[in-house]
């Protein structure tokens, strides 16, 4: 309610709810290279908590949020949160970390809403019957397929004959590239001419850029993020990659919006912004977004990115579900009761309407647009933003992504 800037509804006022604040824990990357994403998630979660508390809390209970660096210790962090008596936990960013955590979450039974942690097969195959573990972020197929659609939209299916990829060399990057490949081949019949995987956090990608230059693909796909995204753009420009290709599509390039510069975004570069782009619908028409942007600007001096919404949305998903549960039960719910409500739960954020599917992952609109520069915000912006509905870019819950794409 307060979270989207609506007027509040006070039906939980006389429910039987304890006084003490809700103890919540968030693990995210608070420092180093991945902090580009992690801090946004932290800002998002903090903003949501601030707004909830200003509005009187969840059924009258304020939220106390502890933030900890996720590092490589995801299970350990979750355990510690549970040992400390947290009522709910959020995070992490890392997909592998999230995958490792799920069974632990199921064992411990304290609800965790992952901010990010996208692994395609996670809820599709590995844990189709999860109870306590959720993910606010969309099904990760979304962003790769949004990139496919965007490429087709920009160049037209007929003019895409070849494509290439430069993706970070770990599970996420490999999955994204595989999804993009099957999608683009399905839609355009294009042929892959090069696919390179620089190390995550690489200090040089020129080898891959050089290869791209040599093969002159029509489209280049890159799921590089954070410092990798910046590095890719810098070296792409320096080595004249945009003379050799017509289009670069990258689902998470915009995650580095605040770390790019005017000359880096120059060129046929399109980026996704997952389920949230702050200026879509435009801040001039949609006040919740306008309020949010100005709040984030004054509080953190950045423009919010999709990962901001990951943090914001994860907290909101849980808080609105808890509030709904109090509504229904007339008392503070148990973990399994909140979990039950979160399944199929729908709620609003300034990004619009979201649902958590029966498969425990989020479904919402995907955004994609052309990278541009804004002196006003001193950050990258997206222009000509396309919005893809969940049903166009994600398989319905219960369907395995590969099968779904094959059926296109």
């Amino acid at each position: 309610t307060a979270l989207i800037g609506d007027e509040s509804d006070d039906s939980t006022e006389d429910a039987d709810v304890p006084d003490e604040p809700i103890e919540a824990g968030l693990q995210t990357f608070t420092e180093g290279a991945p902090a580009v994403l992690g801090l946004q998630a932290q800002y998002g979660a903090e903003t949501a908590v601030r707004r909830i508390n200003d509005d009187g809390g969840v059924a009258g209970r304020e939220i106390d949020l502890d933030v900890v660096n996720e590092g490589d210790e995801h299970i350990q962090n979750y355990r510690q949160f549970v040992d400390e008596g947290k009522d709910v936990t959020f995070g992490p960013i890392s997909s592998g970390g999230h995958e490792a955590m799920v069974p632990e979450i199921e064992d411990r039974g304290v609800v965790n809403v992952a901010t990010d942690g996208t692994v395609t097969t996670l809820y599709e195959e590995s844990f189709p019957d999860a109870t306590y573990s959720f993910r606010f972020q969309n099904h990760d197929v979304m962003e790769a397929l949004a990139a496919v659609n965007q490429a087709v939209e920009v160049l037209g299916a007929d003019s895409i004959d070849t494509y290439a990829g430069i993706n970070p060399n770990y599970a996420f990057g490999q999955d994204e590239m595989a999804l993009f490949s099957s999608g683009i081949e399905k839609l355009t019949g294009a042929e892959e001419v090069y696919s390179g995987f620089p190390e995550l956090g690489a200090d040089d990608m020129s080898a891959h850029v050089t290869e791209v230059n040599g093969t002159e693909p029509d489209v280049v796909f890159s799921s590089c993020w954070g410092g990798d995204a910046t590095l890719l753009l810098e070296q792409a420009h320096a080595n004249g990659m945009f003379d050799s290709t017509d289009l670069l599509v990258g689902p998470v390039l915009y995650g580095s919006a605040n770390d790019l510069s005017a000359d880096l975004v120059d060129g046929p570069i399109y980026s996704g912004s997952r389920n949230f782009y702050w200026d879509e619908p435009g801040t001039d028409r949609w006040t919740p977004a306008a309020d949010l942007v100005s709040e984030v600007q004054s509080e953190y001096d950045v423009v919010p990115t999709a990962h901001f919404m990951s943090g914001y949305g994860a907290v909101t998903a849980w808080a609105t579900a808890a509030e709904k549960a109090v509504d229904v039960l007339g008392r503070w719910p148990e973990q399994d009761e909140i979990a039950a409500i979160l399944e199929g739960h729908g709620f609003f954020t300034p990004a619009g309407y979201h649902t958590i599917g029966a498969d425990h992952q989020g479904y919402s609109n995907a955004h994609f647009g052309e990278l541009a520069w804004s002196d006003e915000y001193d950050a990258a912006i997206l222009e000509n933003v396309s919005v893809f509905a969940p049903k166009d870019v994600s398989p319905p819950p219960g369907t395995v992504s590969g099968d779904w794409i094959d059926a296109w």
Partner: protein
Amino acid sequence: MSRARLSAENLPTSVRVVLVVLGLGVLLAVPDLARVTPLSFATIHKGLLFGLAAVGLNLLLRHTELVSFGHVAFFGTGAYGAAVLATYYEVSSGLVLLAGAVLAATAVALVVGYLVAGHLDIYFALLTLAFNQVLFAFVVQSSFFNSTDGLSVRVGVDRPSLLGLDQLLVSAGLDPVQAYNYVLYYLTVAILVVVVLVTWKLVNSPFGRALDAIGQDRTRARFIGIPVERYVWIAFTISGIYGGIAGGLFALLQLHVRPEPVLFAFVSGEILFMAILGGVGTLVGPIVGGVILVYLLDLARFYVTYYHALTGIVLLAVVYFLPEGILGSLPALGAAIERRRRDPGLVRNDVETVVTSVRRSVRRAVTTVRILVFGVN
């Protein structure tokens, strides 16, 4: 490289017996201690496992005087050994998983050990590091090992069984998660005790002495007829086996194995530091070092913003004030405290010593910078 002589062994037997009993008592009481204090049971458990690996590493470090920067390779191999059995072969017996872990680690240690045994000093250190990283790179790239996402150590969603003991506790009314963790913990303690005893026997045997000889002067060792490479190989393998046991248990504790926490070379460094922190010249020091360093690395972030620095400062303090590591310095520390109890005036001297040494190091630094910047002496 000169290693200090075994200071802990200068303790009178009675004191040592008391310490051993005390240590065992604390170990056995950890689950209860963790319940009544804010100490984290899981973290201590993890610390003990890394400590166990560090005991193995210390076998090389203390006796053959070889610094390994790649010890986590065996820890990781052990962990992955268990995970592969669980994921692909649906093995649900904890003991079989552990056996698989040991087997896998032994195989890798045999190969790596054979190739590194002839090398010395930093060459040895970096070769072990290199093998470690090659292994890491291999696992990260391999879809069989599910690359960076890692493998689960469960069959479906079920935890491995621990000889049915966990079930016994569950039927006695304990929560299954807790039951599993308790049984696993006491299994760890039992294994730890056995490993420590075995190590003790090993290092006090003629073979242990031969390893010392190799560590102190390889050339001489060769010329009194010790087949140096072969013995280093054997010691290396034994130390790898310890790592494998620890890794296997870690897999059972964590129930999910990912490459970074169990195979990345920096973790090797951490295992090395655990051994040094606890006391290279002692048998169980590495275990103490393991618990403390793991605790700092995992949990300091929950309490302070500058948690790296906190860990760093603790380590600095050990370097300067406990020159033989935590356990290694206990005898000296004990004697010093005893002296101070008799003569409290000494404490003031201590304070003065610390103050002057700090002042001196500041002065040194300032002078140095002054010389550097202004070129005056």
